[in-house]
């Protein structure tokens, strides 16, 4: 990508938007950008004249965004410039920013053509601006909604945006923007009611396994419309019973006008039977035929659509998966089940196993519902109650939400506890084969901070974890030998840290009397002076609770002696850390472009130090680029999950962040800085050890003044790393 002249001028330490440019400078920059994008001369001069007539703030605004777009793609900038005088006439600046951000996100995710479509659709943007003044976006309340729906109970439902409002029993789909009501607050309430209604469909059994299948075969288009309304009557009765406050609130936003309310009144009267506490979706289904002739009221405003096919797909994916998961969980609950059944070899297919003796041992008994109104069950093994883990309980609840009861097959522990449920899921014909959520190939998506936009580029980086292949033992042995003197002295220093305990004297409280203080006090007392009450010694032992993540630069530039020095440092440091007993992990990072970011696992927090770890350290090798932000976000997340009072992320690096494409320069530095700020918020202290002599230019900005160290001689790195570690953790 060609770098424009304008980008070169934005240097470190300046705010994102360059200010104080003269009109002439702006004109010159803009014409450069436009020319580079191939805008023809007559167009260009007309455009520049139009821009010159705007006030200075508007000109700076245009200048900033034209540069930002040009940095991404020059055509985007050209299209923006062509439209900007019109856009400024009808849109406010925040709306224009939103428009451009959408275009840039489209470019990041779906390419130039889609981005240009967004840019050209100015009328849509104008409409969106009007809407934004009255509407409520899902983003604004998604965080709250997730908690709220979670709190209401049942199977956890994700909330995602979609043009249609419905649930497929795994997720709740809601519109990204709602403008039905005149006020943003009203629309927020309506969005909440939609989410609650769709939650209630799941919770109160609209989408039971049997019912869905039956409804799909029985109902025609009109039938579905009737069913939808009948279910609405039933579900609202359920909500009114369980959550009366919510029921009243939903009623207040249900109808567009009085006529709709009346129509619903008439309809509900015909379906009164469904308001009884024990009415089920089956009853609604049975009533459809009788109600076909009735005048149908308009849908209640929150009730969304019913998409039975989507539901059927989701259920078809989930039911077998959860059955396997349950059977495995049961198998692991009873490790003796297989042993007690010598005539029940492990190869027995599950179907046969279900009929075996083990199949009859588990049973499920319904107990009193909990206070939230959810039915409760007790799992019994040979008649004895089995304590459920939270996960198993959630699994059972989810299965029962689908099926209403458990078959015998569900309750037979699977023969081979080692089978991964994903194996079956991935077999041909099984739905959802692409939905592998964990395992060695897991892909983590992380946002990236774009300082020009002052926004995240959502899910921009795709990161995978890989294992470093084992290197040669000889390197480890060589390092040990080369640094045997140093290793001893590091060891001694670290041991000294461990035994550092303080006896604090003259304390008001403590473990023992401080005799010196006591005698002094006694003398004071005898002489008639005031006696001190600080008469105790307090034995204070500094308890270490440190978790440290070493993030090792594996970019191509480390090839050779830097890489050797990094590996040597790590081998020495591991010995020292074992002495201290600190929790530590080592990961390398590298990658090429935002879609192929990689971290390399050398040692996890829970893995003990071993020969295998040493071999992996010696296997650390130079790879490609240094996209630091995403690695920091990922490793920071791992670190944040580790319990310790002090958490450190130490980066060993040889230079500034850099990647193929646009990550070099200020963009990469700002993203890295932002990632570091994010992990600081999680209580992690970042620290950087670098051998880049120019680090003084950018490291203070990224890490803060006191949080980095430059090592000028790479040979000193092994000693320095240990020394720095001691310094920052004591």
């Amino acid at each position, binding site marked *: 990508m060609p770098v424009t002249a304008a980008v070169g001028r934005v240097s470190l330490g300046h705010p994102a938007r360059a200010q104080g440019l003269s009109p002439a400078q702006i004109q010159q920059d803009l014409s450069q950008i436009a020319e580079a994008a191939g805008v023809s001369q007559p167009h260009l001069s007309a455009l520049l004249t139009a821009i010159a007539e705007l006030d200075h703030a508007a000109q700076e605004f245009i200048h900033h965004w034209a540069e930002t777009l040009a940095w991404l793609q020059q055509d985007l900038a050209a299209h923006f410039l062509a439209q900007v005088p019109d856009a400024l006439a009808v849109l406010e600046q925040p709306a224009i920013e939103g428009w451009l951000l959408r275009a840039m996100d489209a470019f990041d995710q779906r390419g130039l053509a889609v981005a240009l479509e967004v840019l050209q659709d100015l009328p849509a943007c104008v409409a969106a601006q009007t809407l934004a003044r009255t509407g409520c976006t899902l983003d604004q309340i998604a*965080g*709250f909604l997730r*908690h*709220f729906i*979670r*709190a*209401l*109970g049942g199977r*956890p439902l994700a909330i995602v945006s979609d043009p249609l409002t419905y649930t497929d029993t795994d997720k709740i789909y809601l519109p990204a923007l709602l403008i039905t009501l005149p006020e943003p607050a009203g629309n927020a309430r309506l969005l*909440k009611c939609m989410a609650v209604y769709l939650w209630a469909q799941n919770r109160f059994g609209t989408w039971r396994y049997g019912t869905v299948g039956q409804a799909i075969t029985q109902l025609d288009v009109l039938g579905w419309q009737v069913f939808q309304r009948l279910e609405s009557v039933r579900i609202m009765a359920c909500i009114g019973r*369980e*959550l*009366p*406050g*919510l029921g009243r*609130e939903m009623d207040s936003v249900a109808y567009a006008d009085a006529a709709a309310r009346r129509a619903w009144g008439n309809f509900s009267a015909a379906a009164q039977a469904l308001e009884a506490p024990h009415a089920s979706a089956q009853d609604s289904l049975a009533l459809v035929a009788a109600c076909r002739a009735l005048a149908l009221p308009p849908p209640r405003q929150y009730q969304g659509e019913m998409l039975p096919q989507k539901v059927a797909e989701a259920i078809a994916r989930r039911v077998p998966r959860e059955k396997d998961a349950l059977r495995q969980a049961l198998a692991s609950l009873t490790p003796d089940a297989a042993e007690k059944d010598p005539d029940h070899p492990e190869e027995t297919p599950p179907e046969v196993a279900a009929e075996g003796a083990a199949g009859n041992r588990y049973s499920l008994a319904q107990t*009193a*519902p*909990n*206070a*939230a*109104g959810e039915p409760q069950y007790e799992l019994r093994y040979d008649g004895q109650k089995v304590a459920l883990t*939270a996960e198993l309980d959630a699994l059972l609840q989810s299965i029962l939400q689908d099926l209403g009861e458990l078959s015998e097959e569900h309750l037979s522990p699977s023969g081979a506890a080692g089978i991964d449920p994903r194996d079956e899921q991935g077999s041909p014909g099984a739905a959802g084969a692409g939905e592998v959520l964990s395992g060695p190939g897991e892909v983590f998506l992380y946002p990236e901070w774009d300082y020009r936009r002052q926004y995240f580029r959502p899910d921009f980086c795709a990161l995978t974890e890989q294992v470093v292949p084992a290197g040669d033992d000889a390197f480890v042995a060589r390092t040990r030998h080369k640094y045997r003197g140093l290793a001893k002295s590091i060891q001694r220093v670290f041991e000294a840290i461990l035994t550092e305990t303080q006896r604090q004297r003259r304390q008001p409280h403590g*473990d*023992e*009397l401080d005799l010196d203080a*006591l005698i002094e*006090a*006694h003398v004071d*007392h*005898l002489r008639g002076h005031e006696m001190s009450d600080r*008469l105790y010694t307090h034995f204070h032992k500094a308890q270490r*609770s440190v978790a440290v993540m070493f993030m090792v630069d594996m970019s191509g530039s480390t090839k050779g002696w830097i890489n050797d020095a990094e590996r040597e440092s790590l081998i020495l440091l591991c010995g020292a850390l074992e002495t201290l007993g600190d929790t530590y992990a080592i990961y390398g990072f590298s990658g090429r472009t935002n879609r192929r970011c990689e971290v390399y696992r050398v040692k996890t927090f829970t893995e003990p130090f071993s020969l295998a770890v040493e071999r992996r350290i010696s296997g650390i090798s130079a790879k490609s680029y240094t996209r630091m932000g995403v690695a920091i976000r990922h490793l920071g997340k791992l670190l944040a999950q580790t*319990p*310790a*009072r002090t958490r450190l992320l130490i980066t060993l690096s040889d230079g500034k962040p850099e990647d193929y494409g646009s990550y070099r320069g200020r963009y990469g530095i700002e993203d890295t800085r932002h990632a570091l700020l994010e992990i600081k918020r999680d209580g992690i202290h970042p620290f950087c050890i670098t051998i880049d002599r120019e680090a003084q230019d950018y490291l203070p900005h990224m890490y803060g003044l006191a949080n980095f160290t430059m090592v000028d001689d790479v040979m000193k790195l092994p000693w320095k790393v240990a020394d720095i570690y001691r310094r920052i953790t004591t």
Partner: protein
Amino acid sequence: MLSAESAAERMIFEEPYYEVLGNEREVFTAAYRNQLPVLLKGPTGCGKTRFVHHMAWHLKRPLVTVACHDDLTAADLIGRYLVKGGQTEWLDGPLAQAVRMGAICYLDEVVEARKDTSVVIHPLCDDRRILPLDKLGELLQVPPEFCLVVSYNPGYQSVLKDLKQSTRQRFVALEFDYPQPDLERRIVEIEGRVGPEMAARLVKFGAHTRNLKGAGLEEGASTRLLVNAAKLIGSGVAPGVACASAVAHALTDDAELLQTVHELASAVF
């Protein structure tokens, strides 16, 4: 050293309100008769402390309670020398006091205490039943009426503060959880002095907040919080306000979660 008054002060004469959850009373009584120490596990505010009060009343023993904190040392428990009038004088700590008076000694949140407290807890809790007072040169033989009870919450403490096996394996353990809905409703009704309908709604509200445990909240609303809310409501505070003050703000500071708890309150009332 120890006056009869001190023991009398620590007696509980009025029956503390307590609803039996299961067989905990029988198990505790049996453990007490067999001179076995008791470990109470369970989330905060589910009635552990109230249970100990109840049992102390039931068994007619004085109760010595120590709230443990991370600066609590063995010396704080057994006692220490003080200087009085130019002389040193020994002062019993609460544990030594409890042993001498044959009381029930309750160490609340025992994992919070410093590790060296296990030195005094261990010999008390196995068949030796002794309390060595090293500095006094005395070896207290523990009377049969004495009983050590400790509590801890396995839920929210980090792995760093887990109870060591060597300690926990000396105890008879009783697990507590929030009571079943019917029972919890009765507790809120009686303890919080509200009507059955209001109590039922508060309990339902509590159950919804407990769904958020691990998904934003460290803990859901405890029975204690629900009782507090009920008390406020009983004094004329509107239910929404009572739930906000007694529950929502007590649970979290996070704005989104606060909104969620508020909305839950208005959903059930």
